[in-house]
């Protein structure tokens, strides 16, 4: 029974994501980048069934403190609308999943420290933020693995 559960869990395709054209504006302290993200089918299904997905951006300036920003994607079944929640800011609502994902094409992150002129930005799907019963299967299920390789960012001229 355990083996069956494990085999079933290991199936499925992984999602993928790529961050590109990352530019940091020291004056506005805004880091902007293009994000090409493809969530796996299991992640999309979960999102459609009300499971919140948390994307964690890991910003590592070459000098200065490390910063993590969490974007939460969720679906409200009653209103049948998608919601994007970025840290403590007001949520943004989308009437369709396509619109929600389209809103992720361009990311804008306010950095706490403007001193660094370069650094790296990474992205991963935080499975530890999933509801408790899903954390263990998410550990062994490949569909829950989503990581964007580190992308270099530069200061805009």
């Amino acid at each position, binding site marked *: *029974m*355990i083996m069956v*559960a*494990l085999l*079933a*869990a290991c199936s499925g395709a992984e999602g993928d994501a790529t961050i590109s054209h990352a530019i940091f504006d020291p004056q506005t302290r805004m880091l902007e980048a293009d994000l090409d993200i493809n969530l796996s089918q299991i992640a999309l*299904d*979960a999102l459609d*069934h*009300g*499971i919140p997905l948390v994307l964690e951006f890991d910003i590592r300036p070459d000098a200065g403190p490390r910063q993590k920003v969490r974007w939460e994607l*969720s*679906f*409200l*079944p*009653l*209103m*049948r*609308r998608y919601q994007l929640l970025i840290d403590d800011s*007001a*949520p943004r*609502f989308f009437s369709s999943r396509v619109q929600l994902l389209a809103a992720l094409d361009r990311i804008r992150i306010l950095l706490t420290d403007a001193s660094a002129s370069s650094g790296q930005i990474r992205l991963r799907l935080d499975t*530890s*933020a*999933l*509801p*408790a*019963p*899903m*954390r*263990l*299967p*998410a*550990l062994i299920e490949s569909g829950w693995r989503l990581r964007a390789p580190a992308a270099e960012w530069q200061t805009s001229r």
Partner: protein
Amino acid sequence: MKRVLLTLAPLTAGLLLLIAALWLAADAESAQSQLGGGYVWLFAVAALAILVLIGAVLREAFALVRDWRMRKAGSRLNARFAMLICLLSVPPTLLVSAFAMRFVDTGIDTWFRADVAASQRSAEDLGREVLGSFERRARTIGASIATDNQFSAGVDPQIVLDNLVARIDDRVFVSMYDESGNLLAIGFNTSAVVLPPPPTDAERLRVLEVGQFAVSERVNDVLVWRILVHVAGTGIVQTIMPLPENVAPSVDLLERTAVDYAQLRYQREAMKTTFVLILGLVSLLALLGSLYTALAATRRLIQPITDLARATTEIAQGRYGSTLPVLSNDEVGFLTSGFNQMSIELLAAEQRERHSRSEIEQSRADLRAVLERLSAGVISFTADRILSANPAAYSLLDVDAGGNVEQCTLAEAGLRFPRGAPLFRWLQSCAAAAPMQWREEIALAGEPSRALLVRGTRLASDQDARFVAVFDDAAVIAHSQREAAWAEVAKRLAHEIKNPLTPIQLAAERLRHKYLAKMTADDAEVLDRATNTIVAQVDALKRIVNAFGDYTRPSSGDRQRFDLGTLLDEVIALYEQSGQCQFDRSYPPEPVLLDGQKERLRQALVNLITNAIEASGPSPPARVDISLQRGERSITLSVRDYGCGLPEGFDERWFLPYNTTKPKGSGLGLATVRKVAEEHGGTVSAHDTGIGSCFVIVLATGS
């Protein structure tokens, strides 16, 4: 160290597995993950612990099978106990695990019963309907505000909004912007919304394009509907309507419930997988723990019994004295303690028995030695058969060398050895009558005639009646008795005679000294001859008395260890100094040691050498060969002369007193030699060599 590691590893692994399972279970129940990225490490630790446990179980199982095949002590009991504990523990573990998994599978499904799902869907539909009607109303109000003709009449927008808001019963927050997004006026009748943000560029473009649209969103955590309407020539009117206060909490609750239920429904399979994994870990821990406990704990539990079995086997094989450590104060400890005491007592008993057996063997050897050297014949027997007979018995019965009466019946012995038939017949009759003691003189059959004086006794025995008969040559006994009597007489006679001899000799010499010069020649001649005769005869009498003394002197029993060659050299030196004899010696190069009476042997050697010199005649120097040979259990000493040889008719009787060919001999020289030889467990014999004679003394040396 290795043993401690092997013991601690499974326990540590089991503990780690238990902690991992509990941690996973706790994490699965909590809303927020406590483990985060530690899931991978936790699973790695759990997998390693499982491998360690499996390894420990396999090691114990292999050890058990190996012991079983080698038939080691206690292995069967160990296997039986292990099997029993496995049967008691493994099936319940599997049963509970199977029931638990089944319960998880069905129990989770029951959470999502069809009526609950239908109710949830109905509630959601109802909620959506409420929200929809509210949206329609919001759109109507928004449109009615935007289309009011007061805006086109050039009245101040702020005044228009104030008037409009005052007429509306619903809670609204209305704001007016120009087409560039600049705020023109606001009007509100609710504090639920505080100055919302202006429309975004995209919203402005859209409303300019479509004329009107509505969005629902949360503003200050309040669900609102925002209706944007384009008023031509004036700008954009944004009407925000929050949900009514009496509906908002229900809608919020319904929304949270909808989210939770949707999540729960979606997590159903994931929950099953999670709980199955955790249950699997716990079940695996219980199963492996049961197996390891059954194998390892059983082996340790019955280890004292295994040790006892092995030690018992050692005792059964005759290795006494092994003890075991007493490790507990329970019944097993009591059993081990008792075993140790038994083993020690067995060892002590075995040592006592060995000592007793050794003493018996020594006694038997001593008895055998005594019987072999005994001149009397000894036969032990029962009514059925002869048990033993000593060499003297064979000799007295004239049994040929190689003849054997042991284990024969008395009748068979009589037939095989006819000369002793009268004795065996009489012994048979004694065995039948079984008297306690008897004594009889029995004549042997055939020639030469010999009478045996037989004395017998019945030995005390619980089983067969055993008898022992001691017999001797009646003639030898009579001779011995005569010799003893003669020796006693000779000793007394010598004592009585020797005392007055010296005064007689002194008196004769004094007479001669005092009166010889005073007498006439004739008288003096008579006196001289008479006194010389007296002195000479007194000397002769002294020699005879001394010879008597030597012969009758009892053995002192005071023995010492000495070199016989050295003693011979000392004796020969006396004769070499006189120049009357030449000696040819033949000794071994090494000392010939003997435990004996040195002075008695010196006397015997003097007698033999004196005889040899006297036998060589008056023409000096006489030649005497003396040889010494060391045998396995004896020393042979021979004295050879080149004289006249042995007298005619020389036999054993010449070794008895009063046999001599010498005119002045006492007849005790050879008798003394024989007596000294016998005192040393030896014999003396003589034979002609063709030129002279040779006397041979054989002395026993023991082993």
